[in-house]
C-alpha cells in the first residue's frame, strides 16, 4: 500500500516538475519532515504548558502585597508584550546565549548549556506567558471580592482561596482568550526557524532549498500540518470550555 503511494508520487514528480512530493517517496526526506513535525509538536506542547504556568504564577504575584513584586511582574509583561517575538528569540539566542556557560560532552567541542531549542522554549513561553498573565488577571478580577471574602471567613488562607475558589472561576472566564493566545503561540513556534531550531518549517525550507521542484509540495504540507495542529488545539480547548460550564452560572460555551 505505502509502496504504491510512493510510486504514485514518484511518477507524478517525473510527469510534472511543479509537484515534487519528495518527502513522500524519498525516505530520507520523509524522516526530515517527521523529525520536524516532532520538534514542532514538542515545542508547541512545552511552550503551551510553560506559558500557562507562567500566566498563573504571574497573575498570583500581581496580587502580592509587595509593590516591588508587582512592578517586576508589570515590567516583565511590558517587555514581552511590546517587543516582537522574533526579536525576542534572536535576542535570547544570540545575545544572552553568549553569556551562558558551556560544557563539553566529548571533551573536545564546547556546547552551550542551553541549546537553540532551549532558548526557543524559554523565549516563546515568556512571550505567551506575558499575555497569559493579563488573561488570567482579567479572569481573576471577574470573580467578585465577596466570593473571596466568603472563602476567607471560612478560614481559608489567601493561597487556598486562590487555588480552590478564585482560579477555578477565573479560569472559566479566561478560557476563550486563553484559547486565542495559545493558538497564536503554536503558530509563533515557526519563528524558531530564525535561530535554526529544526522544527517543521525549518525542515521544509531546507528540503525545497535542496530540491527546488519540491517547493509547492512543501507549502501544501506546511498548511496541512498547521491547520491540523491548531485544529486539534482548538477542538480540545472548546471541549474543555464546554465541560467547565457550571449549571446555572454564566453563559460560557452554551
Amino acid at each position, binding site marked *: 500500500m505505502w509502496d504504491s503511494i510512493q510510486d504514485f508520487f514518484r511518477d507524478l514528480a517525473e510527469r510534472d516538475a511543479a509537484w515534487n512530493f519528495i518527502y513522500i517517496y524519498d525516505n530520507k526526506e520523509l524522516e526530515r519532515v517527521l523529525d520536524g513535525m516532532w520538534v514542532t509538536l514538542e515545542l508547541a506542547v512545552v511552550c503551551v504548558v510553560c506559558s500557562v504556568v507562567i500566566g498563573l504564577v504571574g497573575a498570583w504575584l500581581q496580587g502580592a502585597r509587595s509593590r516591588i513584586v508587582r512592578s517586576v511582574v508589570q515590567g516583565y509583561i511590558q517587555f514581552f508584550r511590546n517587543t516582537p517575538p522574533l526579536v525576542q528569540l534572536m535576542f535570547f539566542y544570540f545575545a544572552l546565549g553568549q553569556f551562558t556557560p558551556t560544557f563539553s560532552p566529548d571533551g573536545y567541542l564546547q556546547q552551550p548549556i542551553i541549546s537553540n531549542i532551549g532558548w526557543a522554549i524559554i523565549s516563546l513561553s515568556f512571550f505567551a506567558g506575558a499575555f497569559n498573565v493579563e488573561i488570567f488577571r482579567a479572569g481573576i478580577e471577574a470573580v467578585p471580592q465577596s466570593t473571596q471574602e*466568603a472563602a476567607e471567613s*471560612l478560614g481559608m488562607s489567601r493561597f487556598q482561596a486562590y487555588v480552590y475558589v478564585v482560579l477555578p472561576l477565573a479560569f472559566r472566564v479566561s478560557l476563550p482568550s486563553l484559547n486565542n493566545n495559545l493558538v497564536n503561540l503554536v503558530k509563533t513556534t515557526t519563528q524558531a526557524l530564525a535561530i535554526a531550531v529544526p522544527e517543521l518549517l525549518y525542515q521544509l525550507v531546507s528540503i525545497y532549498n535542496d530540491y527546488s521542484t519540491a517547493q509547492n509540495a512543501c507549502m501544501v504540507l506546511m498548511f496541512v500540518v498547521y491547520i491540523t495542529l491548531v485544529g486539534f488545539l482548538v477542538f480540545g480547548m472548546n471541549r474543555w470550555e464546554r465541560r467547565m460550564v457550571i449549571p446555572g452560572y454564566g453563559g460560557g460555551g452554551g
Partner: protein
Amino acid sequence: MTDAANGNWTPDRPIVSLNDVHKSFGDLEVLKGISFDVMKGEVICIIGPSGSGKSTLIRCVNALNPIDSGSITVEGQEVNDPKLNKLELRKKVGMVFQQYNLFPHKTALENVMMAPVLVLKEDKGSVEARARALIRKVRLDGKEDSFPGELSGGQQQRVAIARSLAMQPDVMLFDEVTAALDPETVKEVLVTIKDLAQEGMTCMLVTHEMGFAREIADHIYFTDRGVIVEHGPPATFFDEAKDPRTQEFLGQIL
C-alpha cells in the same frame, strides 16, 4: 472550654466584647466608639438606617475589616491583634452574607464540605456525614448535588448557613441575610436562624426584619451614624423607645 489559645476565657464572661471601637474608611468615620458585650447563647440584633455602620460593625468581629482603635475580643482573644491567627478566629466565628456568596462551581454538598476538609483537615467521610446532616437541618434534603445557580435565593442562603455551621463555630454573624430575598423565601431563612437560636447558638444579626428581631432577639442595638443610640430587650426597645432618632426610625418602619 478554656484552652491556651484564648487565655482564660470562661463561658460566664462575654463571648464577644466590643470596647470603644472606631473605624474609618478614608475621611468617613463609620464607627465612632461602639461598645457592647454578647454572652454565650445570646441572640442580639443590630438595627438602624442604611449607612449607619451596622455591616461594618459585624464584619469587624471576624476581622474582615480591620478596626482603627478600640478592642474586639472573641472568647477573650483580641481580634485586632496583628499577631492574631485568623484561622483560630474564623473557626470560632461563622459568617453569612447578604449575597450568600456560595462557591458557584461547587454543589451544595461540596460547598458545605469544602472548608472543614481544606481548613480543618478533617476526614472526608465524617465531614460528608456532618454536611448531609446540616443540609437536612436547613431543610434542603435532595438538593445536595445541585449547583448554587440551580437553587433559589432562599435555598442558596440556607446552604450558606449550613456551610458556616459545618465549621462548628461558637458565634454566628448574619449580615442582612434576608435583604436580597423575595418576601416568600425570607421566611424559610428566618425559620432556619430561629432554629439555631433556639438551640443555643450565639447569634449576632444585622437585620431589617423588625418582627423577626422582636421575636428572637435577647437584646436590640439601634445604631445611627456610627454610634449606638439606644439598646434594650425587644419589649422595652420597641414599645418604649426614648431617643427621638429611634422613634423616628421605628415610626418609618413599623
